[in-house]
């Protein structure tokens, strides 16, 4: 039995728990623990992203921007926007007539993102909101695009979050989910496992002074639904024409769905 299947079975038998990496924790506990992780890594988040992905995360995000279809005047919500990489690009595309909302549940990450964006001169069409992806404080049919990049795996109730993201999309709007996924190549998968369970915690310890958070990162990636499962979840949330694009042999996948 795979770890994911084992986890699903455990969760199914005990609906009051969920996974935090490879651990089973009470539902209300996960949010606090995830918050602890991001409070710890916020200040070194960008540096660690560059180091861990060897800069490739910039290309993954660039591809997401290409598929976003954002135009001047659009309303965009960047959930779990963290340090604001996508928000910055979207704010350039929507122009003065549009608006981008950078939302993150974690105050530390939001602060780092806000400071970074303001320091680079990005302002005017960007708003900052501390919000939980499971209960988004926005009206129905409000956004042309909702994105969540490297954030969904940290959400406790993913189905609920996907339903709420769908709710706030305008008809014709699209949801982009950029997230770590399951490598499609067995050789790549083994190399990736070796890398993420040895090099990542080591880098976390040496650079960010925190190996546990980066061990959680590796574990949470393994517990996240694979490409097809996430596609089904998005369809179940009410999205249509859901497709996904594997990047770096499936290490990361970009899912896109439309609201009709």
């Amino acid at each position: 039995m795979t770890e994911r299947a084992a986890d699903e079975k455990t969760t199914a038998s005990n609906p009051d728990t969920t996974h935090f990496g490879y651990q089973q924790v009470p539902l209300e506990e996960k949010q606090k623990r995830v918050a602890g992780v991001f409070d710890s890594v916020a200040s070194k988040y960008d540096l660690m992203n560059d180091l861990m992905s060897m800069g490739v995360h910039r290309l993954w995000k660039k591809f997401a921007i290409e598929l976003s279809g954002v135009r001047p005047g659009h309303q965009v919500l960047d959930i779990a926007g963290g340090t604001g990489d996508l928000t910055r690009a979207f704010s350039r595309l929507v122009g003065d007539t549009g608006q981008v909302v950078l939302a993150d549940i974690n105050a530390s990450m939001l602060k780092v993102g806000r400071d970074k964006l303001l320091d680079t001169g990005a302002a005017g069409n960007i708003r900052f909101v501390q919000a939980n992806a499971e209960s988004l404080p926005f009206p129905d049919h409000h956004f042309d695009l909702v994105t969540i990049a490297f954030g969904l795996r940290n959400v406790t109730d993913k189905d609920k979050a996907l339903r709420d993201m769908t709710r706030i999309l305008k008809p014709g709007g699209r949801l982009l989910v950029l997230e770590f996924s399951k490598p499609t190549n067995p050789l790549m998968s083994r190399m990736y496992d070796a890398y993420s369970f040895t090099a990542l915690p080591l880098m976390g310890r040496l650079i960010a002074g925190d190996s546990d958070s980066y061990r959680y990162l590796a574990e949470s990636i393994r517990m996240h639904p694979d490409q097809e499962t996430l596609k089904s979840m998005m369809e179940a949330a009410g999205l249509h024409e859901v497709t996904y694009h594997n990047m770096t042999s499936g290490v990361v996948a970009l899912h896109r769905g439309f609201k009709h």
Partner: protein
Amino acid sequence: MPYPLILPAALEALINPLLKQLCRSPVAAADLARLQGQCLAIHLAGRQWSLYAHFDEGGVLLSRQTEVPVAAWIEAPLSAYLDWLKDPQIQRLRAHPQIQLGGDTQLWEAVQGLLTAGEGQLAAAIGGLAVSHPLASGVVSQLGQGLSWLQQLGRNLLQETQEYVTEEAAWLPSVSAWQALQDQQEALRTEVDRVEARIRRLEAKTDLGNNA
């Protein structure tokens, strides 16, 4: 086949710092302001390769596809682009037999302004990617074939590695074979213990017989 995303990403990384530097001059800043909010499309003739340039106060955002309405477009072969980068005058664009322009062609004047600002630093930097080495322009023109070849090479290498690993793995005992071996070893140990115990008993009997 779309070209790799790393090309527009690398171009952006090259162009934006230069633009920032050039825009200290009021003339270049005015040219960039004129392009702000506009999307310009650059198509490569003979291939379905397009590059979209979105301008704003932060510089330029390059992408391979967009849904933003295009304000102006240009289509030319690579050699014509390289010629233009050597001498980026708008007249050359309009008169060049291999170049087609569309949309608001006045915007290319602003592009020309940026390319020629600061003694043509930007044009030299972009052109330098292709023409700084005598062989480079040839290499760029063969980029499509080169990428296909590299992809094929990667696929072959992966396949060979997988075959090698599969073949080598066949020589290793499987988990069940290993467990069976351990079971047999355990049984053998038990048999040896039993034989040893029997020998000891027989020796004890022999000693008793001799003593009697």
